[in-house]
């Protein structure tokens, strides 16, 4: 195992090692109860721990979207309730999953990467290996399960908060009344868009968690390397979230 840690190589090497890591996450657990306990802990860390930042950022994104769109519509023939409709659609289809994905790539990604990197540095992972624990499955599997479950919930919260932010901002600035905004929200509801939002959220959750765990798990050396691994985790996760966003939009909207 340690040879894998110290080995280094090009992109093909890392992609191969990443795929093997994902494969090992799905092996049979030694004791399901321990994995479940760890999954609950991670659900709390990833989900509950990120609710406030998601609410805060989403509220203002919704508010800014509403104000800017209302500004663009002012003086045009388009009725103002369209502001509510556009804010809702843009939040559900794009802003809620993508902005949440990018925020979580920073917050959760750096957290997971540094947690695993520190465990590697302080020999906690070696201690688990020597006990006979499948370290990848035990340390990364529950984090993936927690992220794929909790991040879609966070994205739903983000969309709802963003729409509410738009409604409040429209009313406060006087651009669009809450009655008009609500009419826009209720207009032309497409259930498929919710499915697209949740699919994006689950995929982003999987990508940002697995990439960050990969960077942390295979970090070695000094605390400087842990810092570098965290930075790499955030940058790579963010890039992958954006690439996946494009691919999913292309596949799911066609």
């Amino acid at each position: 195992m340690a040879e894998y840690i110290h080995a280094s190589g090009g992109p093909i090497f890392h992609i191969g090692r990443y795929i093997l890591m994902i494969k090992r996450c799905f092996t049979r657990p030694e004791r399901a109860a321990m994995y479940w306990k760890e999954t609950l802990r991670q659900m709390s860390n990833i989900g509950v721990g990120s609710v406030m930042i998601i609410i805060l950022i989403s509220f203002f994104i919704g508010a800014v979207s509403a104000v800017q769109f209302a500004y663009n519509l002012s003086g045009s023939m388009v009725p103002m309730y369209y502001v509510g409709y556009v804010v809702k659609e843009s939040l559900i289809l794009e802003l809620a999953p993508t902005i949440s994905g990018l925020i979580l790539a920073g917050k959760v990604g750096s957290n997971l990467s540094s947690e695993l990197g520190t465990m590697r540095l302080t020999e906690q992972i070696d201690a688990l290996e020597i006990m006979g624990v499948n370290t990848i499955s035990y340390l990364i599997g529950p984090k993936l399960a927690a992220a794929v479950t909790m991040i879609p919930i966070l994205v739903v919260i983000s969309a709802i908060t963003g729409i509410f932010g738009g409604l409040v901002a429209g009313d406060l600035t006087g651009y669009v009344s809450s009655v008009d905004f609500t009419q826009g929200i209720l207009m032309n509801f497409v259930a498929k868009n919710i499915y697209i939002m949740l699919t994006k959220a689950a995929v982003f959750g999987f990508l940002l968690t697995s990439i960050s765990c990969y960077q942390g798990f295979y970090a070695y050396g000094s605390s400087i390397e842990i810092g570098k691994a965290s930075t790499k985790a955030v940058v790579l996760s963010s890039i992958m979230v954006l690439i996946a966003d494009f691919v999913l939009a292309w596949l799911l909207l066609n």
Partner: protein
Amino acid sequence: MIEVKDVRKAFGTQEVLKGISVLFEAGKNNLIIGKSGSGKTVLLKCIVGLLTPTDGHIFFDGKDYVAMGMNDKNEIRRELGMLFQGGALFDSLTVEENVRFPLDMFTKMPMSEKKDRVNEVLKRVNLVNANAKYPSQLSGGMQKRTGIARAIVMNPKYLFCDEPNSGLDPQTSIVIDELIMEITEEYQITTITNTHDMNSVITNGDKIIFLHEGSKHWEGDKVSLFESDNKELIDFIFASDFLKEARDARHDRLISKLSK
């Protein structure tokens, strides 16, 4: 009993272990000593399976650990206990949860039984009233004792200690050394300790292996250690001129004291 047979380990072109063969006996505290960079840690990591030797064999009671598959290796690993240099305690768990971890993961014992076992080993390592503390709230010596408690909670057949005294004051080091010695004798386990602390060598050295530049240069016990004429070993033990002079002046007294 652990037998290491002609083990070699290379990282790229750099050969760190150059064909080491040694027999570690049960119920004894076997020490691996040598300067930094001599290959002690690499040998220990090869024995516990964190590194795979480039060549050679490691037998645990006759079973070839290097050649066996992952499932069989995991079976052997459940008979191993290891004390790490920095303790390697899980930060998010309390002392009790750390010590209980192997029981939670690998046994179906009821919780009350597990708690009794944890309290028993914590008492054995003289660590009482610390169950609810987190590793960050413990001193270095307490972390080592928690590490020992976790290592012995599953009644291992083999105990590995990597630099057990590093970062500890001399008095606490002696306590840890004595604890390792007592546990080895009490449970009749095969203990392998990696150290460059000469106090440990004198306290715990039932059998001593001296490594120099990746090769075994000397093997014996704590009495014969001071009678050896191996130049590298003498340089290692009596690192300063002061110690060399002290040895020459009091050699006979030292040997008779160690022989007792």
